[in-house]
């Protein structure tokens, strides 16, 4: 028996095709320890087969020499033994046909070679042994020579039959189904049973009805398995041709073998009857071989016919599978490209490269561009500008984004969203949604110049591709984001360092007042800014500002504000004048998104006043000791945020608020991060809690008050992540001298004490409408 070299794989299936009886036997735990070793088992099988064959041959030879009629039991035993030999050969030969996936051409070729070999043996047999005869009286070989002759031919035939079954089985079970596997099993079992049904009869007696019924059933199963020809479809054209030729020759050769067995050189000459020579050895085994041969002829015929019908469509199939392969390759490629621009070009060109479309383009929504309208970002086979002009990419993208289904316009010009005329190259249009992670990113457009240029499979293949493209796009976006974030993080860390130096490194000593400051950035770079500067004449300016937005831009604006503050704050003791000045200085440089809210207070210890102007900032919270009249106030004089209005509106609306101080007055200047901070339940900290806390801790010195306010704030917000910067400046006025009897207080302060809960401040426009210029405080 030739050992087959490892076969080439079938084009499509990746599963091993062969799982024979032998391989299944091997999976079972063998009864004997000896059988656990594959090699020992093989040797044992060989030994059993050889012993059985020799025993049968000798028994038959002995009976032939005796020449007496044999008992039915003996005949049955001989036939069962012969079928048993066939069944032993099946697992014995299995390993030689199990070397990986097999190739259909090679399988047909193998069967053909074996068949030719068998035919050759048929022709050689009479030359070597002479004619073999059946003794009609006993139903046994006429003599010892005939018995040996028949035994040898039967063995060859059995080997051939087993080899044929092993070779064709993978083809039958290509793309196996449970039903196919069962039918194959049924065929083998029914054929065996049919063969055994006639075990009691001499070779030249016609079959009894049980044998006929079983034969019919076996033939039914044979016909079913003969139509399992799925392996034909994926074969390339040339290989189909080769298979066609081989199948034809195989059918002819097998038919010839069948004829030769019973009528020609391989036959035993009997009384006017022709029997296969092997029937002299065992009628049952011979019938089993007939089944295998018949199956070979039938399978060869169906293969031949099927190939004949498949040949004309082979080209189309090949083209289609070529396109799909190209697509797969592209889809895999796009998955590995992270550069967005390269990826976009690749996606747009894929349908054209694969030969499915003549033009293709990609429309994407990019929220970062600040627009919800999809833009054509890449095109192949058509100019992006032309694609945009000829189709309403926005409406079409919107539709597929909603339906999540490919949109096929067979006659593109008939759709109102397509403005193409004949000759523009958009006869039919396929629009595929690009959705990844439940989000619609845009659409892939594929166009052909002819109308109805796309088939269902095109839409299917392109839709699969579009899905992968969308995934690749979102991966690329994630990658880009990650890179961007890393870069930002580095830049922000640098900006943070610079920013930290912009904040005052130490606070000035103020006679009669204490000041304490806390700041906590939410991000690397904070939009909050505070500064305290001595203005001369004992006056101190306290500024708290919040730049809208975060990050590097906020840091730049903050730096600018710092520059303006440090350079111009000393020019005036009017907070309104300073803020107006700052607004005008900033107007030129703030972007149109950007503005700064600020509150600026000037403490004049000599006059006992604290004067505020508020440019869109949170109100200053003030609390007064009960012995000084008590009370708490939110000081919120009118004022626009810096950068909101570059014209006279800012000055016209800005007001100053003058607080006539009493010893023990405390003030909190802060950024919105303090009052807008939320707790786990989503509640804002709010002005009321801040005011209440300020009142309660009013008696402490500035540092103690600051610490108490922050502790209460932290207790409220808990572990809630803060997403806004927080700045808190606390100012406490102790009075110019020992403020025991209030004598040291200014007149206004005394008036405030007298008026108890009357607001201790006056509000005035920062500028009189008559003089909108810079107002000097001196």
């Amino acid at each position, binding site marked *: 028996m030739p050992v087959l070299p490892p076969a080439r794989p079938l084009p499509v299936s990746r599963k091993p095709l062969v799982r024979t009886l032998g391989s299944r036997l091997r999976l079972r735990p063998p009864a004997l320890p000896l059988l656990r070793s594959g090699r020992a088992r093989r040797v044992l099988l060989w030994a059993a087969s050889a012993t059985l064959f020799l025993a049968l041959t000798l028994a038959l030879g002995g009976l032939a020499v005796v020449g007496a009629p044999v008992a039915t039991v003996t005949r049955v035993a001989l036939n069962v033994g012969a079928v048993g030999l066939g069944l032993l050969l099946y697992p014995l030969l299995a390993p030689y046909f199990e070397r990986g996936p097999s190739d259909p051409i090679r399988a047909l070729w193998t069967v053909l070679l074996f068949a030719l070999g068998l035919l050759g043996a048929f022709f050689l047999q009479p030359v070597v042994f002479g004619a073999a005869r059946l003794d009609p009286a006993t139903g046994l070989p006429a003599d010892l020579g005939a018995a040996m002759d028949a035994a040898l031919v039967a063995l060859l035939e059995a080997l051939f039959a087993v080899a044929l079954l092993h070779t064709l089985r993978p083809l039958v079970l290509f793309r196996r189904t449970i039903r196919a596997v069962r039918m194959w099993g049924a065929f083998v079992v029914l054929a065996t049973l049919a063969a055994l049904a006639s075990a009691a009869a001499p070779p030249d007696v016609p079959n009894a009805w049980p044998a006929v019924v079983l034969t019919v059933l076996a033939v039914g199963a044979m016909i079913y398995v003969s139509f399992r020809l799925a392996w034909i479809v994926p074969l390339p054209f040339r290989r189909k041709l080769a298979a066609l030729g081989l199948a034809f020759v195989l059918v002819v050769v097998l038919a010839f073998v069948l004829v030769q067995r019973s009528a020609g050189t391989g036959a035993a000459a009997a009384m006017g009857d022709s029997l296969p020579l092997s029937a002299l050895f065992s009628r049952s085994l011979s019938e089993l071989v007939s089944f295998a041969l018949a199956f070979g002829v039938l399978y060869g015929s169906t293969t031949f016919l099927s190939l004949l019908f498949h040949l004309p469509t082979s080209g189309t199939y090949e083209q289609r599978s070529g396109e799909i392969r190209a697509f797969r390759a592209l889809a895999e490629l796009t998955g590995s490209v992270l550069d967005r621009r390269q990826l976009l070009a690749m996606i747009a060109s894929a349908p054209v490269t694969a030969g499915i479309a003549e033009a293709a383009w990609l429309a994407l929504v990019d929220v970062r561009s*600040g*627009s*919800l309208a999809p833009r054509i970002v890449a095109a192949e086979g058509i100019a992006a500008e032309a694609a945009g002009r000829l189709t309403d990419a926005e409406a079409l993208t919107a539709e597929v984004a909603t339906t999540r289904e490919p949109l096929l316009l067979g006659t593109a010009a008939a759709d109102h969203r397509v403005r193409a005329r004949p000759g523009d190259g958009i006869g039919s249009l396929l629009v595929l949604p690009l959705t990844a992670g439940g989000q619609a990113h845009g659409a892939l457009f594929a166009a052909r110049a002819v109308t109805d240029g796309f088939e269902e499979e095109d839409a299917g293949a392109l839709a699969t591709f579009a899905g992968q493209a969308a995934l690749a796009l979102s991966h690329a976006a994630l990658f880009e984001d990650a890179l961007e974030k890393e870069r930002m993080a580095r830049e922000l860390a640098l900006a943070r360092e610079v920013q930290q130096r912009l904040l005052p490194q130490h606070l000035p000593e103020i006679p009669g007042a204490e000041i304490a400051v806390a700041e906590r950035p939410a991000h690397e770079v904070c939009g909050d800014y505070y500064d305290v500067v001595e203005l001369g004449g004992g006056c101190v300016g306290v500024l708290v500002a*919040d730049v809208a937005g975060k990050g590097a831009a906020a840091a730049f604006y903050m730096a600018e504000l710092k520059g303006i503050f440090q350079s111009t704050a000393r020019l005036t003791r009017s907070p309104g004048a300073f803020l107006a000045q700052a607004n005008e200085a900033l107007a030129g440089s703030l972007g149109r*998104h950007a*503005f700064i809210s600020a509150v600026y207070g000037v403490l004049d210890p000599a006059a006992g006043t604290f004067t505020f102007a508020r440019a869109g900032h949170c109100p200053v919270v003030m609390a007064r000791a009960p012995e000084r009249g008590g009370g708490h106030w939110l000081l919120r004089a009118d004022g*626009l945020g810096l950068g909101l209005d570059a014209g006279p509106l800012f000055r016209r609306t800005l007001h100053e608020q003058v607080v006539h101080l009493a010893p023990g007055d405390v003030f909190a200047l802060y950024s919105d991060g303090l009052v807008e901070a939320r707790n786990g339940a989503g509640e804002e900290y709010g002005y009321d809690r801040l005011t209440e806390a300020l009142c309660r801790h009013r008696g402490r010195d500035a540092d103690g008050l600051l610490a108490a306010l922050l502790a209460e704030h932290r207790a409220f917000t808990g572990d809630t992540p803060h997403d806004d910067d927080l700045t808190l400046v606390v100012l406490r006025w102790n009075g110019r001298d020992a403020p025991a009897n209030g004598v040291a207080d200014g007149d206004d302060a005394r008036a405030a004490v007298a008026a108890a809960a009357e607001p201790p401040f006056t509000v005035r426009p920062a500028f009189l409408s008559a003089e909108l210029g810079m107002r000097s405080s001196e």
Partner: protein
Amino acid sequence: MSSFSVSFRPHAGTGPDPGSAPDGAHVCVLDLAGELDAHTATEFEAALQKCLDEGHTRLVVSGRDLQYISSAGLGVFMAFVEPVREAGGDIKIAALQPRVFNVFDLLGFPLLFDIVDTEEAAVERFTQGPSTAA
């Protein structure tokens, strides 16, 4: 992560052609919902840009379901009011919740924008001629 959404609809006017202000020009209403902060501001920005691109310049921003606005959100209003007004339209702000209105108010937005109680009042303002704000 904060949630935010912005949606468009033409104002359902009383005229024969719904979506038209009495003088025939279209008023587009943008409904804001959720939290408008630095993360979600781009979405609002994109929505306003789309309005501008489509030629809608009479915009009413309805804040009935707006829970929170940060300075970044306010920045979007500032960024778009100029181009919208240059195009002959305006952004009017309607139906803000008190807490959100307070944020607008602190910054002085009522001086720069028409901020009214109801969407209808905002649409009404469009018929009374140009913006009353400076």
